[in-house]
């Protein structure tokens, strides 16, 4: 009989990604509620097994480790094979992953191979009579749905930056189970030639806790330097509205909105953004929203916790100075 929660841990270049701590924490809560145990599966290249035992501190009783030279970089087919093999070995009731670029690629492939449905990009979970129910945004957050998985294993991905992390227990240990990896030629058709990291060093929008975003009111690409200064002071990152991206001022990967990235930071500072329905859909779940715009009728002010009606070019530079002072305290 299917038992327990299996969390798929995500790594990049051998380092475990933040979303995995969030998913492990949620997995542990769900396992505790079921009165069952949590296991984790860690897939990676040579040396990845060195992380396995530490996952015990996050509540995993058992860690399945698949270490293989072909698994250093995330690749759909080989990772699917490993996760499905582990799922068949363990027969978990629930499988959780982060709704990152990796989890969004892997989870539906795993679910389809196992012949079950899945819940994408959930922001909260609960159990109803042992059935996993996910709360998930639709229409980029204009609607929330409570969705249940009907078949076992129940598979879901969790949106990064939303679930709370537990305190790891340094004394807890996991049993490490090495998984023998047997890949077939068909698993290796797609080859990762390179992983290109952006040079900025700032967190990705989907993972950032603070976002300073600029829209049409920024007037040109050169003016984003001050938003970058502010974002760097705050340890955040820079976003943009569709108008700014379409104007060629910012790269596509910076776009926040219904057809860009949907973000959930603690603080979203919208500079010169009027707040179209598509933009509001993409950032409406930010915990605190600040709008700086000289047009008092801009729709963004109806969503903002703090509004500054003024010229952003006159407000942002002194704001940078104020933040510097606060940080120096």
């Amino acid at each position, binding site marked *: 009989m299917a038992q327990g929660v299996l969390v798929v841990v995500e790594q990049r270049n051998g380092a475990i990604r933040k979303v995995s701590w969030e998913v492990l924490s949620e997995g542990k809560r769900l396992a505790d509620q079921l009165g069952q145990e949590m296991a984790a599966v860690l897939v990676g290249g040579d040396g990845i097994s060195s992380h396995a035992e530490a996952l015990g501190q996050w509540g995993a009783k058992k860690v399945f480790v698949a270490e293989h030279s072909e698994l250093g970089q995330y690749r759909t087919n080989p990772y699917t094979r490993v996760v499905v093999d582990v799922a068949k070995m363990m027969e978990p009731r629930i499988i959780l992953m982060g709704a990152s670029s990796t989890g969004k690629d892997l989870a539906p492939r795993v679910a389809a191979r196992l012949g*079950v449905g899945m819940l994408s990009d959930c922001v909260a979970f609960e159990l109803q009579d042992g059935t996993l129910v996910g709360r998930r945004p639709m229409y980029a957050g204009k*609607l929330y749905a409570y*969705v249940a998985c009907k078949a076992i294993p129940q598979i879901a991905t969790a949106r990064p930056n939303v679930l709370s992390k537990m305190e790891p227990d340094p004394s807890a240990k996991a049993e490490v189970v090495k998984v023998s990896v047997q890949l077939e030629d068909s698993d290796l058709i797609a080859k990762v030639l390179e992983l290109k990291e*952006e040079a900025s060093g700032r967190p990705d929008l989907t993972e950032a806790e603070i976002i300073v975003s600029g829209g049409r009111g920024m007037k040109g690409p050169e003016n984003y330097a001050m938003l970058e200064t502010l974002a760097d002071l705050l340890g955040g990152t820079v976003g943009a509205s569709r108008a700014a991206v379409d104007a060629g001022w910012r790269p*596509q990967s910076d776009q926040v909105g219904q057809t860009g990235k949907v973000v959930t930071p*603690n603080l979203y500072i919208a500079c010169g953004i009027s707040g179209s329905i598509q933009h509001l859909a993409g950032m409406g779940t930010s915990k605190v929203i600040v709008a700086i715009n000289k047009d008092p009728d801009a729709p963004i002010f109806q969503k903002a916790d703090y509004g500054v009606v003024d010229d952003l070019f006159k407000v942002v530079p002194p704001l940078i100075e104020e933040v510097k002072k606060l940080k120096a305290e």
Partner: protein
Amino acid sequence: MEIVALMKQVPDTETQIKVNAQGTWIVEDDIKWIMNPYCEFGVEEALRTKEKHGGTVTIVSIGPARAVEAIRTALAMGADKAVHVDDAALVGTTDSLGKARVLAKVLESIPFDVIFAGKQAIDDDMAQTGAAVAELLGIPQLTFVNGLEWLDARTVKVNRQVEGGSQIIQCSLPALITCQKGLNEPRYASLPGIMKAKKKPLDTKNLAALGLDPAQVGKAGDTTEILKVELPPARKAGKIVEGETPEEKASKLAALLREEAKVI
């Protein structure tokens, strides 16, 4: 080359969502329906692939009768033909795997070398169907692609967007590619294109014609179930930060973010 673009019709991005009286789904009256914006990138890339390598572009779409409008748009952009799956048993289904089974069944009956799809539909935002179709067909998937180069007619090199960077992946065909913004600029349908689209072959099929059992791939066979839906909580009216000068406003804002909101 045989090129397929999977396409879904969705509510326009401007749509204000309303919940029905039972709280089980949205009110679909008065919605303006459009081609899913991510599918537009897929259709465009399919057309560019044909322009480069020759061949045929086939649109495959599941949806009620109204979906024909979006299919005609894709044909007007330059696609050659379309398969439209319309069956009462599919109305109201919430199941990506079920839809993937329908699409995979269609794809078993038509030749394909490469399949393009949107990275996700902007209505249910699930981003599952492309990967599930690739799995059911047993072919590789390249998801969240925002750059693509053909090394030869059987080998593609893509840029796949990941957090803070991209993966560069090389893959031989057949493969399924899910597309997103940055990949291309979708063309508009020209007036002659719109006129021509009316005469292009559009094959409408129901589940029985595909040899599928409505108890397994329609609403009755859903593997997930929507228990209820609700609108996000309204944000309470915010504070306008007052001040004589921009400097004063900036100073007050920083203090509020520090002391009241406790976010910096």
